[in-house]
């Protein structure tokens, strides 16, 4: 019984408790979202980060779509080019995203700094 | 607080919590044992 329940729960909810939206989803849903507060998740595009007077401006991408984000306030410590981020805020009247809160969404991989490049070519290093 | 500060706080907290719980259990066990009728005392409330 509980097992069936859990399976149905997965099917029903797999797409519905959405903590964040990917960049392409957010772009697709922009007309209906209006100025609602949403969370946008993607990677910081390297080379796009510039400091502004009261924060940073950068591009986030999910590989398909890219959006320009203007953030007010200090970004967190781990914010850097390539970092996976969740930006909280609302759409500007243009195609920009005004964010006032950035969280780092960390992945499930752990590795020491030196294997970084090695892993990229060799694939996953199983423990 | 730096990263190291968070790490040390977390580990200290882990040790503290486990230690405190162990001591808490030991105290309660001791009290329960002392109230056993074998020691001649009446059970306390």
């Amino acid at each position, binding site marked *: *019984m*509980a097992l069936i*329940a859990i399976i*149905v*729960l997965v099917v*029903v*909810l797999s*797409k*519905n408790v959405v903590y964040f939206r990917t960049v392409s989803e957010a772009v697709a849903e922009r007309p*209906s979202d209006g100025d609602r507060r949403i969370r946008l998740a993607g990677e910081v595009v390297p080379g796009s980060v510039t400091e502004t007077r009261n924060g940073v401006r950068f591009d986030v991408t999910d590989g398909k779509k890219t959006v320009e984000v203007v953030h007010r306030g200090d970004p967190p410590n781990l914010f850097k080019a390539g970092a996976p981020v969740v930006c909280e805020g609302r759409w500007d009247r243009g195609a920009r995203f005004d964010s006032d809160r950035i969280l780092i969404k960390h992945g499930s991989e752990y590795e020491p700094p030196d294997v970084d490049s090695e892993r990229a070519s060799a694939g996953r290093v199983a423990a | 607080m730096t990263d190291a500060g968070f790490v040390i706080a977390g580990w200290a907290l882990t040790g503290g919590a486990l230690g405190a719980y162990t001591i808490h259990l030991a105290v309660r066990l001791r009290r329960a044992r002392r109230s056993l009728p074998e020691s001649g005392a009446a059970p306390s409330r």
Partner: protein
Amino acid sequence: MSLWREAWLVAGKDLRIEARSRVILYQVLPFGVVVLLLFAFALDPSRGLLPRVAPGLFWVAVLLATLLAVSRAFAIEAQNAARDGLRLSGLDGGAVFLGKAIAITIELVVLEVVLGAGVFLLYDVEVGSVGLLVLSALAATAGVAATGTLYGVLAAGLRVRETLVPALLLPVVAPVMLGATRAWEAGLGGTPSDGWPWFGLLALFAVLYTSIGMLAFGPLLEEA
């Protein structure tokens, strides 16, 4: 007697008691309305916030009222050795559970109609999809009532019942609160299609806890 007839018998008994004593009508219902009013007072400074948080406030009010209704449903069994009567009646445990849960559901539905009207009038909300609102409310209520009945009997006959039931019940019904709130957000002003999966979750929860309750109720009633 079939399970359903037995269940209706128990539900009818509880509802008749409520109809005569009017505790739900004169105590629980005003309590729910006062909760809604207090929220409105507390959030008044930020106008425009009320319509947005209306679904959440409505369901919190319903939940608080549910605690009272559950407490009441088992208080009536505690008087005049009524529980012994129920035990000796030879009714199936599952049927007794079902009956009590149905009675609580009906009481809560009456309560929700009044509170829903209150939200509509006080909080200035727009109704998007009436069907979604009604169905998700029914499913959520059935789930909450089933859970409440199960935990009510778990705590039945104890001196600490009044405080124990909320402590046990609130975490368990937290997912129902979430689902019902999201479904109502979708039904009030949002996109109704977002709400139907939540209705599915609520229905699932109701079925799950009704089944658990029907299985567990008999043995629990015997020992309470």
